[in-house]
């Protein structure tokens, strides 16, 4: 297992290197006017050259890349160019990420807590009214644009309940609505997948055999159906880790939460290269970590998957 983890880790580093280098080079294809600010047409050649030199853009791209990685190895993500000029990137991102991650993690916990039992009870009552209600909920959440029910929640849940309209870091009551809004789509999707995997499991021959050997229905549901349906879920869950730290542009903007939502798009538009590079590095790192955790957890719950053997056969 350790050997496998190490191997996966090295491969993750390689993927990160490729992703970040690609992004780095792509950013160097952007028009240089973007770095100069609004009045670039009136600037003299010397001013422009000085401005570019200050950002290190006058050097050839390989040299710039080398400088970037050198700083990165010293744990320095650099300073923002435009978003908040000359302010260390870590100091910009960290507080934002903390806000998004806290709300995101709570939303994820809530959606697992509600989504999995929802799917399980839908599967158990397949075709009957709890299943139909659940399906209606899933379809509604997945088909309707989220903007609509996010606004509905904000409008109706705040009137007369004492819950404030906007987010306030020091008043946890104001976190409730954003968390619910963030959780709703994943409740629906966890519910849908869980139902599907359980229905698959219910129709398996080993469930029929368990029935034939006289195991009570409740135990069959727990030991054979739920447990087996949970395996593919386990792989699904960690990969949604990424979404918790990325934040949701829409939810964060309607509750004015100072989170990560939309930050990446924003800095790309403003050609804040150092910020883009830092965000891409973090997001892809977390994304790869999520997939990796999914694989490891899957191997832990399913004896058929043997990570070591896979690696030996290669």
């Amino acid at each position: 297992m350790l050997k496998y983890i190490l191997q996966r880790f090295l491969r993750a580093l390689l993927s990160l290197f490729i992703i970040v280098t690609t992004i780095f080079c792509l950013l160097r294809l952007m028009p240089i006017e973007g770095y100069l600010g609004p009045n670039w047409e009136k600037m003299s050649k010397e001013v422009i050259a000085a401005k570019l030199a200050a950002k290190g853009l006058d050097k050839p791209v390989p040299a710039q890349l080398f400088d970037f990685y050198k700083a990165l190895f010293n744990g320095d993500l650099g300073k923002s160019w435009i978003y908040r000029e000359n302010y260390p990137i870590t100091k910009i991102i960290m507080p934002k990420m903390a806000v998004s991650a806290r709300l995101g993690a709570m939303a994820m916990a809530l959606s697992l807590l509600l989504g999995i039992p929802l799917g399980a009870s839908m599967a158990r009552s397949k075709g009957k009214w709890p299943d139909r209600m659940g399906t209606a909920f899933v379809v509604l959440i997945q088909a309707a644009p989220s903007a609509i029910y996010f606004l509905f929640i904000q409008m109706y849940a705040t009137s007369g309940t004492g819950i404030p309209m906007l987010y306030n870091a020091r008043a946890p009551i104001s976190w409730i609505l954003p968390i619910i809004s963030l959780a709703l789509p994943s409740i629906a999707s966890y519910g849908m997948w869980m139902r599907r995997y359980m229905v698959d499991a219910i129709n398996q021959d080993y469930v029929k055999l368990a029935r034939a050997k006289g195991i009570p229905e409740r135990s069959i549901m727990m030991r054979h159906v739920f447990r087996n349906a949970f395996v593919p879920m386990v792989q699904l869950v960690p990969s949604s880790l990424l979404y918790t730290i990325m934040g949701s542009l829409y939810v964060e903007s309607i509750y004015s939460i100072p989170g990560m939502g939309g930050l990446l798009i924003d800095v790309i538009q403003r050609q804040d290269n150092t910020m883009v590079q830092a965000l891409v590095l973090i997001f892809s790192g977390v994304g790869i970590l999520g997939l990796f955790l999914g694989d490891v957890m899957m191997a832990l719950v399913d004896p058929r998957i043997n990570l070591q053997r896979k690696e030996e056969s290669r």
Partner: protein
Amino acid sequence: MEQEVILSVKDLNVKFSLRGRVLHAIRDISLELFKGESLAIVGESGSGKTVLTKNFIGLLDKNGWVDSGEILYGGMNLAGFTTEKEWAQIRGKEIAMVMQDPMTSLNPLKTIGWQIEEALRQHQGLAGSAAKKRAVEILTDVGIPEPERRYKQYPHEFSGGMRQRVVIAIAMACNPKILICDEPTTALDVTIQAQILDLIHDLQKKYRLTTIYITHDLGVVANVADRIAVMYAGDIVEVGTCNEVFYSPQHPYTWALLSSLPQLGVKGEELYSIKGTPPNLFNRIRGDAFAPRNPQALRVDFLHRPPYFEVSPTHKARTWLLDPRAPKVEPPEHIKNIRNLRDEKKEDAQR
């Protein structure tokens, strides 16, 4: 020989509701199962073989129900069982089942040992080392080498034949009185089939089991069965000892079924197949269900359902041909050769 009846089915009718229509799957079946015997139920797909036996352990699909009739076992009427609790005293404990496909019958996430112990815990209250000891014993019983090591393994580490042995081990875990084998060898390699049949046969002798084989493989039947029940369109059309059904079949459907044995084919000629399709059980069946496919059918076959005519105390068939007023219709010539065929097979086996 007077035999003790262990299970008896009386005038059983089973119906299914499918897309708003009612399907009459089992039509007035009566059958007695004797203690320690092995009965084979043969018939083509859809004739109701599996549905009949599923009633014995209450595993009928949810859209099916017993319309009328009784299934008597140990002083209880199984046909009247409705709750899980009632079935709990039968399933696994008194009547166990081996299913068709060993590749999918075991839970891939649990060890073999766990899956056997699950039944032991449920019915015998065994746990811990006592359960393990018993599970290893059973694994040894069904001929799995190195049971101690195998006990800890998962189904994917077993071959198909070995898995079927495990499925049989699970069925045997609680010393059932009756073992239903639903096509136990269909999904297996031909070379493994004989081993599994031998195993079931040995277990039957050792534990005085009563076994029911569901199969459409007459070769299997000839090897294992004491008695044969031939099913057609949800009814038992003929029942008798193995010799009686093979050597003096009475029902035209049995003739047709035996004629389709590939071993009876003559080189250069096309193999025999029964023309037409089985009747639609959504419709009401009049007369003898096989009549429309029977070229020698009598007029009465289309009008009235034949009763059972006794050929011998152990042999009866539902066909008007056995009525004293019926014209004499001889069974097809070639199925008389069956005796030679079977004798050859026996000699082969002895060699």
